[in-house]
């Protein structure tokens, strides 16, 4: 079995690998975290701890899933708030975890309703020997408007509460941001101005995943009614990646320390977050679906990736993709690349023909006798929809041509990935 050093240093804290449970039911008590540590997780952002006076009262049932054809959990909707366990219990668990797992990293996620709450909670979790604090400024389904994503979208409040936590603790502070915002930069900047050291993102996306079309309300239905609430899992990964890239693009934030969250399930997802600048990675939904064991393949797969890339430390790739992701107006628009159809692989289903006709530029000619497609290069715009719909990978990128009147050598244009993708 391959062995590589997966450790990362983040906000002055050493993590044996970048994989952490994100704050949610997957890290809700001592036994859960202990089992997760035993199975290889480097740490936990413990389930968000609220002030004593805030009473959590949950609904039942509280989850829904988005499916597509046969695939479950494309996305996951939840209506949970913060920790249900009493404050003393949570603090006790944090302490015991640190005592029994001194090399694992305990991040205390906290949430208050006012400055005093935030400051007090910061003190309490610092006394409980947490390694780091994560401020939950982002839960979209709190029953109080003084809490959660209503706070996270308001930079002034964000700054104020970060300053309060800074007063209460000298631990590193992560501000956990909500994606329910057009531009995350002002809120992130406000948190850093207030005293936070880094950003954790994303929390869940406000959503309605499905309706009960007979009862005529959102799922899950609670005594005949539903609500807008947070969406997570694979479907939100693109949203998370986009926010992380945009944070690292903002002036002055090129080196922003980030804990990446949102739809991480495989080592490839992990690599993507790292390449965009996340140093640690947090996971909930895929653990809820499959269990802590998924960390085994994330760690092992990442080691193989490091081997392929010829690197010894993950720090060598953190943020490595930021610079090559550019504004759309900076992309090379001087060429197009035609699809290449391999008739030996083609099984004659005609899906490329349908999609090109109905969704692109009517550029695929269909030979009814032979049941084989050919590309009409006069009509083809090189969009590669056909490539994506072909079920057997018979369509790939083919000839590159310069658009009429444009300069450039087609051979210098990079079109294919060096990865072994069609084995």
């Amino acid at each position: 079995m391959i062995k590589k050093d997966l450790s990362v240093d983040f906000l002055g804290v050493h993590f044996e690998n970048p994989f952490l449970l994100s704050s949610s039911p997957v890290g809700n008590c001592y036994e859960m975290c202990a089992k997760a540590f035993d199975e290889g997780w480097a740490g936990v952002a413990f389930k968000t701890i609220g002030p004593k006076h805030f009473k959590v009262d949950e609904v039942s049932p509280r989850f829904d899933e988005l499916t597509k054809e046969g695939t479950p959990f494309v996305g996951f909707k939840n209506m949970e708030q913060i920790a249900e366990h009493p404050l003393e219990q949570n603090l006790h668990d944090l302490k015991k975890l640190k005592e029994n797992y001194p090399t694992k990293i305990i991040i205390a996620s906290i949430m208050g309703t006012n400055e005093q709450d935030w400051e007090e909670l910061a003190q309490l979790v610092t006394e409980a020997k947490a390694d780091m604090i994560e401020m939950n400024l982002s839960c979209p389904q709190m029953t109080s408007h003084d809490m959660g994503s209503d706070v996270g979208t308001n930079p002034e409040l964000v700054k104020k509460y970060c300053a309060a936590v800074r007063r209460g603790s000298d631990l590193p502070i992560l501000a956990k941001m909500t994606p329910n915002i057009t531009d995350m930069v002002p809120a992130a900047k406000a948190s850093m101005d207030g005293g936070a050291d880094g950003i954790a993102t994303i929390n869940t996306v406000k959503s309605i995943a499905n309706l009960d079309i007979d009862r005529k309300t959102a799922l899950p239905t609670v005594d005949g009614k539903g609500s807008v609430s947070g969406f997570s899992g694979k479907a939100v990964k693109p949203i998370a990646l986009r926010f992380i890239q945009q944070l690292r693009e903002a002036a002055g934030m090129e080196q922003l320390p980030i804990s990446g969250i949102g739809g991480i399930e495989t080592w490839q997802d992990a690599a993507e977050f790292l390449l965009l600048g996340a140093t640690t990675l947090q996971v909930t939904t895929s653990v809820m679906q499959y269990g802590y064991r998924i960390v085994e393949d994330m760690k092992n797969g990442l080691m193989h990736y490091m081997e392929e890339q010829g690197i010894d430390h993950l720090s060598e790739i953190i943020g490595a993709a930021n610079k090559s992701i550019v504004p759309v107006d900076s992309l090379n628009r001087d060429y197009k690349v035609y699809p290449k159809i391999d008739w030996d692989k083609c099984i004659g289903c005609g899906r490329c023909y349908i999609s090109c006709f109905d969704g692109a530029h009517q550029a695929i000619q269909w030979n009814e006798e032979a049941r084989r497609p050919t590309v009409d290069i006069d009509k083809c715009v090189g969009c590669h929809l056909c490539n994506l719909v072909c079920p057997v990978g018979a369509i790939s990128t083919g000839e590159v041509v310069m658009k009429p009147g444009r300069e450039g050598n087609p051979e210098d244009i990079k079109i294919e990935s060096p990865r072994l993708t069609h084995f």
Partner: protein
Amino acid sequence: MTKKYETEAPGYTMTTVMEEAARCLLCHDAPCSKACPADTDPARFIRSVRFNNVKGAAETIRENNALGAICARVCPTEKYCELACSRTGIDCPIDIGGIQRYVTDFEQAAKMDILKQGKSNGKHIAIVGSGPAGLQVATTMLTKGYAVDIYEKNEKAGGYLTYGIPEYRLPNDIVEYEIKRIINLGANIHYNTTVGDDIMMDDLKANNDAVVVAVGASESKVLPMFADNENVETAVGFLARVKEAKGNITDLPENAVVIGGGDVAMDVATTLRRLDVKNVTDMAYEEFDEFKASKKELKGTREAGVTIVDGYVPTAVNGNEVTFKHRHIDSEMTIKSNKIILAVGQRVNAANLNITIDKHEEVPYAGYGTADPKVFVTGDIAQGDKTVVWAVRKGKEVAEQIDKMIMGSTKEADLVGGNE
């Protein structure tokens, strides 16, 4: 003409393997893994495939099974992992063998070298026979740091992998890759060397810390009535001949009768059909409800166009005319054919090896020891199933036992100060 003989059924692609892996229920305490005789851990490697970690999947397979690419193709999965699969409660089991084949093909394509030779511990072992059992013993011992010499009677290594299982089920390239890995790991194979004839057990014992006998059942049984009949050939003799010639053999009959109802008989009958022998009749002792051959093999044989007659035993032979009688009903038939191939079982040849083999063609006791504390048995001649995956299991187990014996005693010796 040999294309049909040489062509293996197509395997999964990156897309289709994911579709199959997506059917897996990722069970808790997975029954499939418990049912694999060699602990290849299918639940673990399917999960790796599912989470896009094909390299990790390859590590799981290779570290548990030195012949992972071969087992992927020849395991009677219906009796082991797939029999246990929970997915059967919904429709049909996960195609574990198919996924394993994809992963090991990927391992080959990505040129992965997963196993590493252990740091030398100064100990030597000799293995008699380079079939799957001998190869697995060699692998486990090499990873533990032993020096390994294998003595093989034939010109090539692999036992029935090389000389038995037909090309369309197990391409020789695959067998060669797997053996190459083990040679690269440090195995020293002495070809064309029959132990008990070219070299004696006493020599091996004198020069090694342990000797493992893994000679398999390499000879065909012949029913007395067929002895010295020029129309008769043995199954393993025929299969070896065809495999070596890659199907290019010239003396094919126009029609043939195969006698036997096990996998070997199915292989012979199917091979004949794939070589375009027009009429092939298989006469089986067992009736279909007690059939020995695997369902997969039986299906393949039927699809190849072989006529299979169940429940008959040969009672008389006259040149190329054989008379069969049904075991239970009053029925008799006589078949005249150009060729009669006997697939009625294999026997062990343990000449001068000083081990006892009983009428079941194995040692008359469970386990791997022998009367001589330095000599062990494994593979088909040890008790347990006679399959490749069991040969792997028995190879792993005997290797652990020998390691315990040698290193255990070394440790004790160290405690009392050693003897050097």
